[in-house]
């Protein structure tokens, strides 16, 4: 039976280890946005031995490229993008930098699932295509790196009760496989 949690970033090992695939989490606090282009730059910085633009320890990264904000709004529509494009970068951030959470949509590869088990991190799913609804839960946004990437720049955002589902937990479980197994009809 799935449980509901309210968590605040940065996430601790205790926070993430209690979560199981299928649980509902309402997330609060600071989250950083990054898509493929920003991930590539972050990993390049690490390879060059340079400092990252934000502290990755306990951090949560949201895979999103929002629409431009309308005047007076902190951010435009902001739903998750497909996560597999970050698969080649995420394990390094989890295993070596202490990244504790990722928010996106869609399947992750085995390397990411293994990193979530080994170094205790969670892959959360947000509802894709619910960009207007999710933007309501974002109270502030500030570009902190790579403004030249436009929608793909790294933003520091503050979320309030951001609705998430645990897809991959620290025990190697996968909500997509579990859910589908329950409803697939084989002839």
């Amino acid at each position, binding site marked *: 039976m799935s449980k509901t949690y309210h968590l605040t970033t940065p996430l601790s090992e205790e926070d993430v280890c209690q979560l199981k695939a299928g649980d509902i989490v309402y997330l609060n606090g600071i989250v950083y946005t990054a898509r493929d282009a920003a991930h590539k730059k972050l990993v390049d910085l690490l390879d060059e031995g340079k400092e990252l633009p934000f502290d990755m320890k306990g951090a949560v990264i949201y895979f999103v490229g929002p629409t431009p904000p*309308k005047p007076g709004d902190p951010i435009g529509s902001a*739903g998750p993008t497909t996560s597999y494009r970050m698969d080649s970068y995420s394990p390094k951030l989890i295993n070596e930098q202490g990244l504790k959470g990722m928010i996106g949509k*869609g399947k992750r590869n085995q390397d990411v699932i293994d990193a979530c088990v080994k170094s205790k991190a969670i892959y959360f799913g947000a509802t894709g295509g619910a*960009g207007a609804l999710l933007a*309501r839960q974002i109270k502030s946004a500030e570009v902190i790196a790579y403004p030249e990437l436009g929608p793909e720049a790294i933003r520091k955002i503050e979320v309030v009760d951001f609705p998430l589902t645990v897809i991959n937990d620290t025990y190697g479980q996968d909500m997509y496989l579990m*859910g589908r197994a329950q*409803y*697939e009809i084989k002839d």
Partner: protein
Amino acid sequence: MKEIQYKDIVQAIRDCIIYSGTNLPQDSYKALQNAYENEKSPVCKEVLKQLLENADIASNEARPLCQDTGLAVFFVKVGEDVKIKGGSLKKAINEGTEKGYKDGYLRASTCHWDTRANLKDEVGYNLPAIIHFDLVEGDELEIEYAAKGGGSENVSRATVFAPAKGRKGIVEYVKQVISDAGPNPCPPLTVGVGIGGTFEKAVISSKHALFRELGSVNPDPVLDSMEKELMVELNKLGIGAMGMGGTQTVLGVHIEKNPCHIASLPVSVNVQCHSSRHTVIKF
């Protein structure tokens, strides 16, 4: 000869892009409502509830439904007796696209294939539009528009079968494509299938199939029965809304056919997410 003003086309396209970006068309909204009613999984039911709520917020507050406001795709039927006054049709469509995406606070998503640099300054805001022209008899101009997101485009596939594969082979192929896609393309989906023609004709037909109204019946009885068979088969995959596991994986299957070369059976599957933003402008 009918004259249509360049500026009128620009204005109509701009307005239709802004409206489409923030208002889910009625057929898509109704299909989501039906999926919500029929869904057996409580988790997917919650997702579908969020999607309907999202559509209401987007419409009431004029906010983009999704942050992926797509590449702008057009199918244009130009009557031979139509004359555009004040500029070219292609330019008008691109200008209207740029204005619509900019003025509507929609995202500029076109980039260089290699450097991945955004093309908003170099080429234009979310330009170029993807335009398919068709020359027809008469004095009408019909412009079909859809916003096509990247997540669902990335799972789309095409192949050329040997004719022996037949209907059974096509059904199996479509099932495989949707099964492999799983949660990635934001189900529940509209599945466009293009059969026949040459390789590229099948692909373009599968794209055009996505523009058809959800819930409409295919006038070809064979294709209609294939669509109904595929609806059942694809929903049996158990993928459900956002891949959480459920009974409502597809909102519609739309098939278009073309005559084939005697040696080949091209098949293309173009996938559209639950946010099927499409509309038609007629002059």
